């Protein structure tokens, strides 16, 4: 089937930019074999690209991009510094995050971490057997006596101060 130049010319630019599908490519190349006008149009495009590409590439090579970047960095540094409160607010502001889908893995991570930490935090400490109450007792100055009653549930730690150490301060 012969394709008209008007329908192919729409595809020609895409073909030139290598943006056509495989089917379109076969179609365009088939038409180009038979159509001189379209071949010329394609050649014109190639020439135009060459005309633009060469001077642009030369200009790019001459241009000192590090200098441009340095200039941008200097401009950034010269910008007004944010106060600590503005900085904090920008950090706390989560609205940019909500626009992205990153909150999904973040929320999932949060849930997992909550479950893990909840198990650790809410893990009940075991009941301690109602055994001896006094773990240790010491006095470098006097004797100490400990006695323990079960009815009533009372433990007494008594410091025997000698009369010579009698104090009047409390």
């Amino acid at each position: 089937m012969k394709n008209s130049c008007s329908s192919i010319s729409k595809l020609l630019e895409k073909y030139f930019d290598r943006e056509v599908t495989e089917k379109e490519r076969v179609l365009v190349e088939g038409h180009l074999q038979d159509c001189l006008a379209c071949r010329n149009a394609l050649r014109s495009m190639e020439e135009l690209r060459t005309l633009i590409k060469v001077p642009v590439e030369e200009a790019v090579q001459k241009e000192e991009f590090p200098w441009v970047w340095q200039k941008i960095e200097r401009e950034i540094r010269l910008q007004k510094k944010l106060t600590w409160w503005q900085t904090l607010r920008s950090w706390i502001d989560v609205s940019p995050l909500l626009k992205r889908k990153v909150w999904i893995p973040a929320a999932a991570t949060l849930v997992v971490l909550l479950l893990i930490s909840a198990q650790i935090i809410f893990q009940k400490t075991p009941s301690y057997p109602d055994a001896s109450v006094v773990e240790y007792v010491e006095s470098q100055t006097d004797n100490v006596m400990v006695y323990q009653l079960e009815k009533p549930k009372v433990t007494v730690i008594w410091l025997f101060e000698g009369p010579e150490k009698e104090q009047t301060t409390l």
Partner: protein
Amino acid sequence: MAIRGTGEGTDDIVKRIALLLTAFFIVFFFSLQTAFAQVQVRMRVILASNAGQEIDPSLRDVHKELGSLFSFTSYRLIRDESLNLSLNQPIRITGRTGKAFLEATLVGLHRNMAELRLRVVREGTEILNTQVRLFAGRTVFVGGPRYGEGVVIYALYGNF
């Protein structure tokens, strides 16, 4: 340039999420830990002596107990406080002059028991150092330091 900028933006987002999550967990974990590692202990400071027959009206609930344990005739309440003890945070209960104090530190906490380290210090000298397990429903008396004609008794009750 454009590619570099995009990469930095993504890194920044990831860094912000990581930092926000870290900050959240630090606050969350420590606030919970602090909230749960607390215990309320009631402490009464009693002055017991054989001078007179005075029983402080606010000690009537323990008068019988005191009478069965000690042989004093007079009991006066000097202080009655509820202490909110946090782990490893010592609290000092001073006497009237401030020269003597009992320092209580929560060193461990179980469901039915709090481990307390108690130090009695008078004029810079530690006269008693002990560690007790304060069970719910049990009273611990620490007594003996002399004061005037009597002695001081610290009574501790666990409110948990």
